[in-house]
């Protein structure tokens, strides 16, 4: 049974259709990439799944239970936790306290939560900033804070909204390492990403949105050959580059 099932979800803002009958599933243990051009409705879909927006039509199931219309804190408590594309540090709190807020979800006792927060901070490479005010972090640090905070809630499904956008290539590499590590801990990942070189090697499956519609779905290898995805998003040049890379790998 799928961990997350999005069934015919439609989201309209007035006359604008941001998501049009989008359906897909995420199985436990998978890494699923959600890609598409700007304005394709990726973040809107995230907001619907995480309960920030009510859906106009359609249903969402998480862990076998329907979560359509539930407030976001209930969905988070069930184990589906997201990060924000535009980072949202709790500015006047320290980095440690930010992560501790997340850790309190499954550790009301202080000591247990503190331990969990500390290990998440360590994991995300934020240890040297722990006592700094979250508002003072550089952008890369704020992105990692988003991740650490969500991770501290011990989610079943972690939904990452462009955590790698704006990072340097070294930082992207570190982030990929971290994502692999998170998957090894048994956490399922749904990742919105613009950096194709980042998402393609780690995703088990990719869902492609364009104009609010789910235009393709499948393993990355198949997606980069898909005519519709190439014309809508990847572009011929980029697709050739990805294919060349794949051939390099198979030859090697």
């Amino acid at each position, binding site marked *: 049974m799928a961990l997350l099932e999005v069934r015919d979800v439609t989201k309209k803002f007035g006359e604008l259709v941001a998501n049009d009958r989008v359906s897909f599933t995420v199985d436990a243990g998978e890494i699923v990439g959600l890609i598409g051009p700007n304005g394709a409705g990726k973040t809107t879909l995230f907001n619907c799944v*995480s309960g*920030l927006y009510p859906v106009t039509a359609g249903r969402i199931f998480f862990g076998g239970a329907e979560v359509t219309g539930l*407030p*976001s*804190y209930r969905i*988070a*408590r069930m184990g589906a*936790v*997201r990060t*924000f594309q535009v980072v*949202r540090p*709790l*500015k*006047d*709190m320290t980095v*440690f*306290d930010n992560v*501790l*807020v*997340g850790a*309190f*979800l499954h550790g*009301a006792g*202080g000591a247990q*939560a*503190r331990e969990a927060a500390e290990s998440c901070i*360590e994991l995300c*490479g*934020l*240890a*040297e900033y722990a006592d700094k005010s979250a508002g003072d972090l550089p952008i890369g640090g704020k992105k990692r804070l988003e991740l650490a*905070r*969500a991770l501290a*809630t011990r989610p079943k499904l972690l939904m990452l909204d462009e955590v790698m956008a704006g990072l340097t290539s070294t930082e992207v590499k570190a982030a990929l390492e971290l994502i692999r590590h998170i998957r090894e801990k048994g956490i399922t990942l749904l990742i919105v990403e613009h950096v194709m070189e980042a998402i393609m090697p780690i995703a088990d499956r990719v869902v492609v949105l364009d104009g609010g519609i789910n235009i393709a779905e499948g393993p990355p290898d198949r997606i980069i050959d898909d005519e519709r995805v190439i014309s809508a998003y990847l572009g011929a040049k980029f697709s050739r580059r990805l294919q060349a890379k794949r051939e390099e790998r198979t030859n090697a």
Partner: protein
Amino acid sequence: MHHGALKRKDLFWLALVALMALVPAVSVITANSFLMHVLILILLFASMAQAWNIIGGYGGQTSFGHSVFFGIGAYGAGMAVVTYGLSPWPGIGVGMLAAAAVAVLISYPCFKLSGHYFAIATFAIVEIFNRLFLVWYWVGGALGLDYPMVEEGLANLMWYDSKTGYYYCALVLFALIFGIVRFLEGHRFGYYLRAVREGQETAESLGVNSTAVKLTAMALSAALAGLCGAFFVQYNLRVDPGMVMSLDMSMKFVLVTILGGAGTLAGPLLGAAVLIPLQEYTRALWGGLGGGVDLIVFGMLIIVIVVKQPAGISGIVRDIAKRFRRPADAKGGTSVGTA
């Protein structure tokens, strides 16, 4: 590292309370009735500001309605004594519960408003309750309640000869409310409250039920403001609507906290320790010039502080402490590891 820092801070506060408990042993102070009055008011206003600080500082929801809860608490004790001829204690309990209930009822719809609109809505509530109590016969209307002579002591929470009894009551009130806030600061609820202040949607995305957190904080804050109101009426021996349920009184909750430093444990005490002596001594010195001299001084001080340091007096104290601590940090500051 975090636990060590917490303990040192607690010791400081315990030592402070112990020191304040010794004040009545100094006969020079107890002989000066006006000084005792000022000390009692400092403790009372620090407690009131700390009660407000729960929702207003830590929770970030600026309420101008706290004089309503303060008034309900005052009327709870006052009516028990004046109307029903009882000890004030049952009235204090009922008053605190009523204050919390009223707070929840009025803030539930108001919390749907954000930012300034919440503050404006709470303004209106003060006016509503002020008018209501002015015309409400059962609570004494515009005449208010005047205390009869009763036997002094803790049972009646009343003393005539000396102010020492009131001083200790105020100190207990202070220790109780500061203790509660100190406890909350280090526990899940306190973290959730600050998280809601810093970003409601973010907090919700981490599993925090922001509505429940805000309502609980509001109920606690109102009940404690009501407890302060009960102490006030026992000390003042009289209550009428203009005295307690007024925008003036609401402003004091807000100003003392903001001047001292909202969202900090020390802020309410620092604010009260500066503003209350100023208020009482200017009143005593220049009261003949007509009412409001103290408010002029109040206003100017607020402007200066807020312009110089928006985090209030506690922000200034922190800056000074940092300046003194820096040389020590430089010596032992090389232990930061790389991840």
